[in-house]
């Protein structure tokens, strides 16, 4: 129990850092209705760019910005695959993600590159968890506020309309392809920012650090929705719900690790958790549909 309580601040810090990714996944999955797998690659790209920039002597804030820009380019690639070449959403993301592995190897020069908090000025580090929580928390809040403003603008409303009803959007003069690309660019910029902070937090960028990121992002979005869906109606609060979902996810992970789950089994565990949460609405619908039918027969 004591070990678990000791692990909690670390879970919160990790959750807040991955919360930025969760906001990005919220934009594609919930706002645009686009399951974007690019983030597995763009998160690692963000980590790689940030670490190489910082070790090259760049200011960490500037490095974070560079990382986000690199992630945005990845999102742009996926967006163009989909809108210009007509490749289905999931496949477009998989293609970019696969290609990014090589790109990330080139950026890093090897599969793993360390960045020590002793040598460089970093934004977050697991050596200073409290500060990491505050920094990552401020980032999450600032990003949420900026996005809340953005989705209230004419352009942001066009992105939302595209995700909600592309037929209506086109009938109202919205270029739905542009909006999809824009959404993917923003989302992957956030994924890369999340990766940039996570690489600093753990003290290294790894070419495999993004593996399964989409599943963690989805888990965060879905947990946030299940827990807060009924009480959070405001758009900004819904994005924050995804961040809190990420924190809850990492707390659950800390608990199951304490209970003796091997770290090797974590990905399997995550996949099953997400599958379960995705299945609930479907199974619920089926169950209720059957009940209605039975009721009808009884009346007849």
């Amino acid at each position: 129990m004591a070990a678990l309580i000791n692990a909690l601040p670390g879970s919160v810090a990790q959750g807040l850092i991955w919360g930025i990714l969760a906001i990005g996944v919220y934009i594609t999955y919930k706002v645009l209705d686009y399951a974007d797998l690019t983030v597995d690659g763009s998160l690692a790209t963000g980590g790689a760019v940030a670490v190489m920039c910082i070790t090259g002597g760049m200011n960490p804030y500037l490095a974070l910005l560079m990382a986000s820009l690199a992630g945005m380019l990845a999102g742009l690639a996926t967006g163009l695959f989909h809108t210009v070449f007509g490749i289905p959403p999931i496949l477009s993301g998989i293609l970019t993600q696969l290609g990014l592995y090589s790109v990330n190897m080139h950026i890093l020069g090897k599969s793993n590159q360390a960045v020590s908090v002793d040598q460089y000025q970093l934004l977050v580090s697991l050596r200073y968890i409290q500060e990491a929580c505050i920094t990552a928390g401020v980032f999450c809040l600032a990003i949420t506020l900026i996005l809340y403003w953005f989705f209230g603008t004419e352009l942001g409303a066009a992105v939302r309309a595209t995700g909600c009803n592309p037929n209506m959007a086109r009938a109202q003069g919205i270029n739905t392809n542009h909006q999809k690309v824009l959404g993917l660019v923003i989302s992957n910029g956030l994924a890369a920012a999340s990766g940039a902070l996570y690489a600093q937090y753990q003290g290294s960028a790894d070419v495999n650090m993004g593996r399964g990121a989409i599943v963690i992002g989805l888990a965060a979005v879905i947990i946030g929705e299940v827990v807060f869906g009924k009480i959070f109606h405001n758009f900004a609060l819904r994005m924050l719900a995804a961040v809190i979902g990420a924190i809850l996810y990492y707390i659950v992970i800390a608990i199951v690790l304490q209970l003796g789950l091997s770290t090797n089994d974590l990905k399997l565990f995550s996949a099953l958790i997400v599958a379960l949460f995705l299945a609930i609405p479907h199974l619920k619908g089926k169950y209720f549909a059957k009940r209605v039918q039975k009721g009808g027969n009884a009346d007849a």
Partner: protein
Amino acid sequence: MLKVEKVYKTFNPGTINEKRALNGIDLVLEEGDFVTVIGGNGAGKSTILNMIAGVYPVDQGRILIDDIDVTKLPEHKRAKYLGRVFQDPMTGTAADMNIEENLAIAARRGKRRFLGWGITGKERESYQEQLKALDLGLETRMSSKVGLLSGGQRQALTLLMASLEQPKLLLLDEHTAALDPKTAKKVLDLTKEIVEKDHLTTLMITHNMKDAIRLGNRLIMMHEGRVIYDVSGEEKKGLKVSDLLAKFEEASGGEFSNDRMMLS
């Protein structure tokens, strides 16, 4: 105003499902025309509307709106000239966005969208007034999600959205077919009101022959991707459903006797 010149469209060409939907159709609408379109299933009514709106590219032919050749323009660029209401009440509005947001999006049809506010306070007041005029009680529910509205309310809202930024041409694709008779009548009355108020040039598809005769100044009948009957003015006013049925029979050799059109 609208010129459709020898437009051809075949779906799934070269396959077993090949379907020639438009067969060299010619159609000219004058400014202020309110044209009702009737025809059996598969006559090409919806296809011609979709061609004008740019949903699919044409195989051959030209489409001009106000002498601007829009044949090659994508759907979202043509939207500037067009107001559209669809058969399915779900199609015309964004369900997860609220009433005022839907209206604000429609008010920006054909305009550049950038980082200005998606909706301003002044707009809200104006929308409230216009919703009040619909007399559906929507003016008190401006921040409700459109998904919570009934089909009739959604069609009325879509109509308002279509006319908010005055279109050169209003396209109505059986927009009352999915509604119950009472609601359908209300939406049709509203359609008439909006078209007359703004003198909108309108193309309205309907399955209801009485409506087709009662509304508008001109009626066209389509069959196998062509206009086979075009009547306007006094002659149209004097039409009876039985006249239209006779025309159908004549055109199709009696195949319409089983069509759902007979019922209306």
